[in-house]
């Protein structure tokens, strides 16, 4: 079994920055990442794609090449196509790569597993052709594939970014169906101080919005009663805006109302999480170096709480400084000296967050959907099912999982977990923290039994099977 001082899970901005910093300070570093190329979702395939369409994707995307360049350092082993499915205590990481199970040991581990799109369950959201806005971006970045006849639904800056990119590529969205209201924007102005400190984001946002308006893309705001129609695939989106009912035909629907931390790996390690009301999601409890309450487990980037790509980069650097300090490669004084710049950068990046969170809140009907709307895509469990299990005494998500299978499918609850917590908290009158979350266990991603068995070191002991297990 190989061994590294530090294993980083995820080669997005946090993971890449942390790996580069830790390697520079003399640690042996292995980066495990599922994708074939470094970059994470935000800089997906950046090295290959920048020459092809860097102009469409913009300068923020092109910036990713500085991180991938730093990752190509001798002391960093970047393992691509590595699907991590178990992390056991202090620390043995199991992953599959090219159909084989592999293990690596590490003294410390940095989880840089990024974000997931906040689930947006609404009628028709499981139809083919309905995707996350992030999926739309990945299609464009990695594959150069653009939806010709798409509508964007939801709220938030990413919606404008993808619209602007679609415009530049010559396939403008058919309409923007936006859920945030004028009231949200007015309410958000109390955070304007922070927003002004992070003014570059607002300027960029306004510029994108202006280009969308200039291109004549129809915008509907303060929208409610959103549903996707179709039988075998998405055919139209219906909604209310003002007092009018609308129906817009389309082939593709991109949904977005924010992103949330991907906490699966951290939870599998027993890291304590708590509810963040402003971001309407669970975040891991960390100190200001990204150290969790589990010794040796660090978390950086959007997986630690949503801050965006630049914030992730700074947080990754900070975590690596503390990891190097703990490993005896760096004095505390030197750690603090080197931390000054990334810490200031992080504060700058996070300044606009409270404004953005308030101005583009999640679409409320998708947080507590109608009874008939499926919230667990894998096992097809509806919001009404969860409410009925609450009536049968379920007070937590592991009980509803046993009663109705929400969270049992291959996605391991990634897209239903927060919905179930919210629905149960609403039904029982308890807080999300009291309600809790799924107990996450290996495999973090499915693994074939053959791959598992290939790692078996002991012959099956059939004599031990005498006791019935019912």
């Amino acid at each position, binding site marked *: 079994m190989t061994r590294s001082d530090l294993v980083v899970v995820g080669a997005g901005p946090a993971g890449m920055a942390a790996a580069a910093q830790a390697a520079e300070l003399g640690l042996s570093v292995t980066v495990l990442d599922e994708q074939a190329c470094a970059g994470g979702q935000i800089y997906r395939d950046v090295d290959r794609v920048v020459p092809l369409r860097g102009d469409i994707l913009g300068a923020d995307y092109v910036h990713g090449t500085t991180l991938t360049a730093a990752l190509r350092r001798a002391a960093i082993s970047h393992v691509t196509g590595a699907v991590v499915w178990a992390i056991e205590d202090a620390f043995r990481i199991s992953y599959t790569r090219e159909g084989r199970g592999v293990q690596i040991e590490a003294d410390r581990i940095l989880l840089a597993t990024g974000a997931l799109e906040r689930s947006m369950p609404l009628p028709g959201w499981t139809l083919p052709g309905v995707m996350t806005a992030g999926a739309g971006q990945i299609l464009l970045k990695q594959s*150069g*594939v653009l*939806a010709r006849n798409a509508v964007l639904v939801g709220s938030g800056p990413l919606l404008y970014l993808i619209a602007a990119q679609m415009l530049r590529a010559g396939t403008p969205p058919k309409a923007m169906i936006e859920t945030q209201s004028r009231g949200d924007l007015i309410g958000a102005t109390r955070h304007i101080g922070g927003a002004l400190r992070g003014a570059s984001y607002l300027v960029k946002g306004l510029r994108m919005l202006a280009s969308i308006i200039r291109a004549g893309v129809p915008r509907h705001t303060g929208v409610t009663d959103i549903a996707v129609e179709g039988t075998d695939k998405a055919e139209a989106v219906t909604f209310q805006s003002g007092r009018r009912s609308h129906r817009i035909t389309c082939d593709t629907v991109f949904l977005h109302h924010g992103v949330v931390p991907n906490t699966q790996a951290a939870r599998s390690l027993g890291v304590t999480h708590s509810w963040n009301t402003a971001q309407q999601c669970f975040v891991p409890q960390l100190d200001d170096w990204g150290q969790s309450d589990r010794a040796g487990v660090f978390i950086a980037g959007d997986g630690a709480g949503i801050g965006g790509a630049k914030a992730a980069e700074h947080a990754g650097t900070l975590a690596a400084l503390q990891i190097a300090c703990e490993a005896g490669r760096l004095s505390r004084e030197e750690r603090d000296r080197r931390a000054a710049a990334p810490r200031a950068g992080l504060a700058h990046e996070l300044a606009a967050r409270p404004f953005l969170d308030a101005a583009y809140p999640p679409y409320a009907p998708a947080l507590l959907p109608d009874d008939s709307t499926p919230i667990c895509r894998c096992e097809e469990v509806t919001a009404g099912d969860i409410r009925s299990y609450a009536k049968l005494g379920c007070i937590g998500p592991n009980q509803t999982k046993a009663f109705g299978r929400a969270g049992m499918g291959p996605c391991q609850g990634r*897209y239903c977990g927060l919905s179930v917590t919210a629905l149960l908290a609403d039904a029982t009158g308890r807080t999300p923290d009291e309600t809790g979350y799924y107990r996450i266990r290996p495999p973090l991603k499915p693994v074939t039994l053959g791959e598992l068995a290939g790692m078996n070191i002991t012959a099956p002991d059939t004599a031990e099977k005498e006791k019935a297990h019912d």
Partner: protein
Amino acid sequence: MKTASPFLELDNEPRVNVVFDGNALSLPEGANLAAALMAAGVNVFRHTPVSGAPRGPFCMMGACFDCLVEIDGTTKQACMTVVTDGLEITRAHRDGALT
């Protein structure tokens, strides 16, 4: 099949032949399989084992497992699979897999 595609492809990579659910398709070599199938006009990747509902790619980042297809008897995420020449793809466990 291509003309029915709701997607525009910017790149012009060399194409290879694959079979999806019995239909011959010509897809860009080395491309993301989920993206390539969608660009080739495939909407429905599978039907769920629970209700038989149609599904296609949703997240494109390996998290949602809606783009499952079957290759060599094993279910795989199309969005985490690369297009190679001669790939034979079936709808997941449609005709009784593992036989």
